[in-house]
Every structure is written in structure tokens, then in C-alpha cells.
């Protein structure tokens, strides 16, 4: 029998040369410095004196083709036909003449793309897929981010923060959104609810047992069926068992809460990189606009904005003022759940008399 002819894929990862703005290609590896004539605009000068202006704007990340075509229309008409994206889904359009900058900004803003996200601003939130597409999400990502960026709109458009602020959101504890100055992450509070009728057929049981970070899962016979059971006293409700075993439902409309973490720093500038730390939990997962989450994020941000010195990132600021004062100034309660008892957690305790009174 004749098999249908399948196209063989061309396995090749292309390089970026033909996608580079001509000024980028001409000055590749030969830039001298940059400055920012205004928020949202980068001006790079090469060692030969060549110049390029980049206008950065926010996008919704999950873009419909009409939005992308609008961006392309603007890049063709007001720019020079090239667009690049930042790691935080901001679009950048480059021009080789200063006089093109203002009309480009005007066109972007008129089409609804806010210009900003440079320097010491709050950039767009790095985020995950959420209810739109993920198979294990505790919340939506695009919705949380849209509601948050509406609130932080002026902070995106201006450079009024002490240093850059990087935000992330994640729809489960896997934390795909990544480490950030402020991270909004789902925190489940109840062990998984197990549908014992399905476990034997759907889940590779030894693999699920192995996945648990606290060895709380064991094979068991439930109602005569091979299944899995969870030692609920041991369970830390992390949800690690849910992806390999969907009948162990971890998401709960009521008990999947939202936690807030601060002080993650990716850069090596000043201090070594840091992981973010838990500062709030138990916030309701409250679509469509998550007002409780936004209130806490805004409170932390505004306290940082007011109190931090120039060039202090969130982590640097807290390092200077100390955690007790962080909690005092933000009004957030410090609870026993913030005392680290995971492996290596003892290094997070204060083994000194260094105390700020």
C-alpha cells in the first residue's frame, strides 16, 4: 500500500544575520556607549560614531496577528523595517536618525503600545501561559499581568524607580515566570484530591512516587484498585505529582492561593545573584483582576520607590534596611511560614547578633 508522502523537515537553526537592523550589522561588536534621551528610548553610539535609536514599547505578549501586523506597519512606515523583542516581550523598533524617534513614539502610542520599559522603570512582567494554554495552571497569567500592568502603567512609562524592577508571575510552584524583584506565584494550600478510579490507568505510579520532594506519596490499594495515597501530614502541597498524574488534582478554586516573593536578582551587579524570598501568602486567586494581589505588589513597589537609594535593587534595599524593617514599612505580617525549614534552610537563619533596633 502506498504511504502518503511526508515532507522531511529541514533540521537547521538559522543565524540572525539577515534579521539585523543594518546599523546593528555594520557596528556588530563595536559599540562604544549608550544613553537614554527619554524613557523608552535608547541611543547607542558606536566606536566609529555611528548612531542608532531604539524605541521600546510594551506588548500583551500573547499577540493576535492583527496586533503583530500593526507593529509591522509602524516599523515599516515610521521605523526601518526591523523589530526585535526583549526577554520581557517588549517590542523594539530601531531608527538611524534622531528625527524619526518622535513620530515613531507617537505612532506606537496612538496604536496602544505604551513606550517605556527602559532604565530604572518597571518593565513588563515575565509570565507563563495560565488557563489559556497550560495543562496544570492554578491561575491565569495573561490576566494577572494585564491587571497588574494597568496599575503600574505610569511606572512602565517613566524611569522613577531606584533601579530597574523586574516582575514575574507563575501559575504554579514550578515558577516558570522565573526569579524576580517581585514574583507572583500560585501557592497551593491543600494536598491533591485523588480520583482513585483513574490513577492505575493514567499514571506511571513509581514515577509519581519518585517525583514527590518529601516522599509523601506511596502506592496503595484503594477500593480494590491499585492507586496512590498521600501522607497529608508530610505533604507540602507543591503540586509536583499533578503533571505526571492528572488524577491527583492539586488546583482548587478556593485553596489554591497566591503568594508574593521579593528580592530575586538575576544580575551579578554589586551582589551575587539572589533568589526571591516569601513575603506574603494566602492571597485569593481572584479573577478577572486580582485586586488583592495588585494591592500588595503596589504597596511593596511604592515602599521601595520611596525608601531605596539610587541604584539599589529590591534585594540591595532590603539588605540595607533589614527584613524586620521591610515588614514594618510594607505592613506585611511576618509569619512562621517564612522561616525556612527546607534543606540548607538553616543558612537563612540569623547566626549573629546583627540586629537593627
Amino acid at each position, binding site marked *: 500500500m502506498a504511504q502518503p508522502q511526508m515532507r522531511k523537515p*529541514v533540521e537547521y537553526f538559522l543565524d*540572525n544575520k539577515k534579521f539585523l537592523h543594518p546599523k546593528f550589522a555594520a557596528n556588530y561588536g563595536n559599540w562604544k556607549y549608550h544613553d537614554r534621551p527619554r524613557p523608552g528610548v535608547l541611543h547607542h553610539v558606536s566606536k566609529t560614531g555611528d548612531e542608532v535609536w531604539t524605541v521600546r514599547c510594551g506588548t500583551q505578549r500573547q499577540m*493576535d496577528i492583527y496586533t503583530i501586523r500593526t507593529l509591522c506597519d509602524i516599523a515599516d512606515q515610521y521605523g526601518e523595517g*526591523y523589530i526585535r523583542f526583549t526577554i520581557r516581550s517588549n517590542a523594539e523598533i530601531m531608527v538611524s536618525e534622531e528625527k524619526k524617534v518622535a513620530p515613531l513614539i507617537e505612532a506606537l502610542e496612538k496604536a496602544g503600545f505604551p513606550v517605556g520599559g527602559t532604565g530604572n522603570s518597571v518593565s513588563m512582567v515575565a509570565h507563563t501561559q495560565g*488557563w489559556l*494554554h497550560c495543562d496544570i495552571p492554578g491561575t491565569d497569567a495573561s490576566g494577572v499581568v494585564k491587571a497588574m500592568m494597568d496599575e503600574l502603567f505610569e511606572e512602565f512609562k517613566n524611569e522613577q524607580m531606584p533601579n530597574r524592577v523586574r516582575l514575574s508571575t507563575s501559575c504554579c510552584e514550578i515558577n516558570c515566570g522565573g526569579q524576580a524583584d517581585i514574583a507572583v506565584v500560585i501557592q497551593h494550600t491543600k494536598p491533591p484530591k485523588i480520583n482513585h478510579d483513574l490513577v492505575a490507568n493514567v499514571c506511571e505510579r513509581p514515577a509519581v512516587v519518585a517525583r514527590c520532594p518529601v516522599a509523601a506519596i506511596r502506592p496503595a490499594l484503594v477500593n480494590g484498585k491499585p492507586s496512590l495515597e498521600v501522607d497529608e501530614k508530610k505533604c507540602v502541597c507543591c503540586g509536583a505529582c499533578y503533571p505526571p498524574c492528572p488524577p491527583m488534582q492539586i488546583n482548587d478554586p478556593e485553596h489554591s492561593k497566591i503568594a508574593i516573593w521579593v528580592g530575586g536578582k538575576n544580575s551579578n551587579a554589586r551582589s551575587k545573584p539572589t533568589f526571591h524570598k516569601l513575603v506574603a501568602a494566602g492571597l485569593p486567586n481572584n479573577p*478577572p483582576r486580582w485586586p488583592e494581589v495588585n494591592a500588595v505588589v503596589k504597596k511593596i513597589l511604592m515602599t521601595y520607590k520611596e525608601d531605596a537609594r539610587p541604584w539599589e535593587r529590591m534585594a540591595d534595599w532590603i539588605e540595607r534596611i533589614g527584613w524586620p524593617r521591610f515588614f514594618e514599612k510594607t505592613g506585611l505580617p511576618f509569619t512562621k511560614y517564612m522561616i525556612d525549614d527546607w534543606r540548607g534552610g538553616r543558612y537563612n537563619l540569623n547566626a549573629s547578633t546583627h540586629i537593627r533596633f
Partner: protein
Amino acid sequence: MAKQPHPTPMLDELEKGPWPSFITGLKRLAKEKDYVVDLLGHLEHSYETRKGYWKGGTVGVFGYGGGVIPRFTEIKDEKGEPRFKDAAEFHTLRVMPPPGMHYDTATLRKFCDIWEKYGSGLIALHGQSGDIMFQGCTTENVQKAFDEINEMGFDLGGAGPAVRTAMSCVGAARCEQSCYDEAKAHHKIINNFLDDIHRPALPYKFKFKFSGCPNDCMNSIQRADMAVIGTWRDNIQTDDELGKKWFAKHGMNELVNDVVAMCPTRALQIKDAKDVRRDNPYISAVALNDTQCLEIDNKDCVRCMHCINVMTGALAPGKDKGATILVGGKSHLKIGALMGTVIVPFMKLETEEDFDKLVELAQNIVDFFAENALEHERAGEMIERIGLANFLEGIGLDVDPNMVNNPRMNPYVRTDGWDEEVAKINAKKQAAAA
């Protein structure tokens, strides 16, 4: 014209406010596509019930074992039929963007045309994995869409226990801090691992990220199994003209408070121009005015980038550039988040041979990982389990004090091989000196 939209009172709330709305975008697509009408209904149902309703499955393209994220609806009626039948399948194609995420508009427009024809019309630029996410496609159309995207010269990214799509910063294309050709390293590494990307057969995922300087804009220390971060060995470069310009604008208070006091290793001092230690080869100095300088002791400098970030142009990375390699970064599951740690303090990345050495190192590491990691164990977890010294021995690298914050703090180690180790180190030193 598409069918009548479902009522979406909750999603409608996300059309308010100044930030660009993905809901407005979806509604625009829903005017033309029944697919997106039902997608909006599906998403509204999630908002109402606060739960997700997509399950995975097996969908792919001919010749590959990964790169497509399959999604089937779990919202069914009493007969078990999908309630939002036009969006019953909502698969994603992960496609690798060019290094640095540079595009011309013709390419983006072509993506749009392909996705208008075969998919939902929703494209995420970009996913957290660094891919272009072509979101929303039926099983039937996945192959057709891929064939056209592949004809354009683009290829699928990684998913599952595979080498994953990599990310690199804007780098040498636009950034004065770039310390190596990030795009070239990215390009060479990925082309070396295409088989491991397209046919998942590793213990778990393995990610590469490329940042041109220690600002690490790709967050590679926290997220990459192997991080390649630009750095330099010689002195910070200075430009007196730009130094004076900076000082005239910002003044002594900012220089002291924002630059000198924030140096993590106290490598900066303000000096009268006549007192700068010009006979010391590790000193660089930038003029602030005609009588004062900022002096940098480059032996104390840890290349953190802070002073260069603040005084860009006046200060710049040195000329003897290369990269530091760190291995083992990952997020929480299963043993807690880990940062990558140094395995190569410095390697040159200039000639083809340098880049070939980087590829060779990456291949060694992935081979060792494939052989030695347990199922669903990331490289960092494997190193945690076997110890860094064993990992280094496995991939043939020598130990180096740059790999630790400090030496061991406990005596629980057998040291009866001490003399042999010292002899080996001395022999290597002698061989290197010869």
C-alpha cells in the same frame, strides 16, 4: 464572519485599562474564526470556575519527537462531547527565534499569514522557554503549519526531556557591554544539538543561555543548565572625555554614593590625578576633571558591572574578553531552586577553535548528564547528588578555587589521596611552566 460569541463578562473586564489587552486581540480574531469564539468561551469558563481545562497528549510532526505542545479540552457535556467543540484541540508549536530575537517585518508578516491560515491567529512573542509560541492549532493542521514555517528556514524548539531552545541577549548587535559573539555561540551550540532537541531522549530537560556580560540579561545563572556569560580578564577600559562629561553632570555626591560606595569589593578609590598608581599594571583610572581621577584596582575587581552600568562609556569591559561557564541552574522542582555554579572561570571566545571548544565542552556535559542523571533529574540536581568534584572529573576539568565561595567547612571527607592530588597539581603546574 464567525459564529455568535459566547458571553464573556469576566474577560470583558480585561479590556479595560491602558495596558494592551490580549482579550481585545482574541475578540478581534473571534470575528473571523469560530475557533477563537470557542477559545474565549473556554477561557471564560476557567475564569468562572478558577480552574484550567487543557490536558496533554501526543501530537507531533513527521520526523520529530518534540516541539509541539498538545492540548485537548476537558470541558465536556454529559455525553462526553467537547462543550467548546471548535476549540477542542489547541496545540502549540514551539519555534526557535533567531538569536537575540531580531526580525524583519517581512518575516513577522509571513508568520502571521501562516498562522491565519492554519492556526488560531495567536502568537506569543516569546514564551518563557525562549520560543516563538504559535498557540492554537488542530491536530490536522500542525504538520501543514510546520511545513510552511520550516520552508521559511525556521525549526521547532525543544519540549520534554530534551535539549531545549536556547536564549541569547541582544549582545554584540547593539550592546557596548558584549564580551563575546553571543549569537555565534548560540547558533553553533544549537546546531550541534538539533538531534537532542528534536528527539527527546535525555533524563530531563537541558537548557543553554547566553549572556554577553555579567548583567546576565538572560537570567542564565538561575535558569540555565549551562550558562555562558561574557567577562574579561584585563583592566576595565576608561575614556577620560566621557568620564569628565559624566562627572560634570552627576557630581561628587553621586560618584561617592552611587559608584564608589557600591563597589562590592572596594576596588574603587577617588585619587588626585598625581597620586594614581600608574606604575601598577593592574590599575586603571578615569579622569573626573583636570585634577581628580577614579582609580580601579583590577586585581580586586570581580567584574560585577555596577560601575560600568552607572558610568557607561567612561568605563567599559576590558579588551581580553571571553566567557565564564556555569552549570546547574534550575527552578524549584524537585530539590529546591539551584543556581548555576562556575565550572570554567574563563575561556576565550574569539576564534573558530575557541567556539569549537565551547561546543565540545557542552557536548561533554550533555553526554555526562545523559549517562549519569536519574530520570527527571536536572544537571544541578545530579551535581548536588554526586558532588562537584566527581562531576568535574567526569567531564575532565581541573578544580579551581574560583568554583567555590569558600573551602569546605566540615571534616567529613576522606583525604587519604591528598599527596597524589598535590603531586598531580604540581606536575600540571610544571608542565604548564615548561
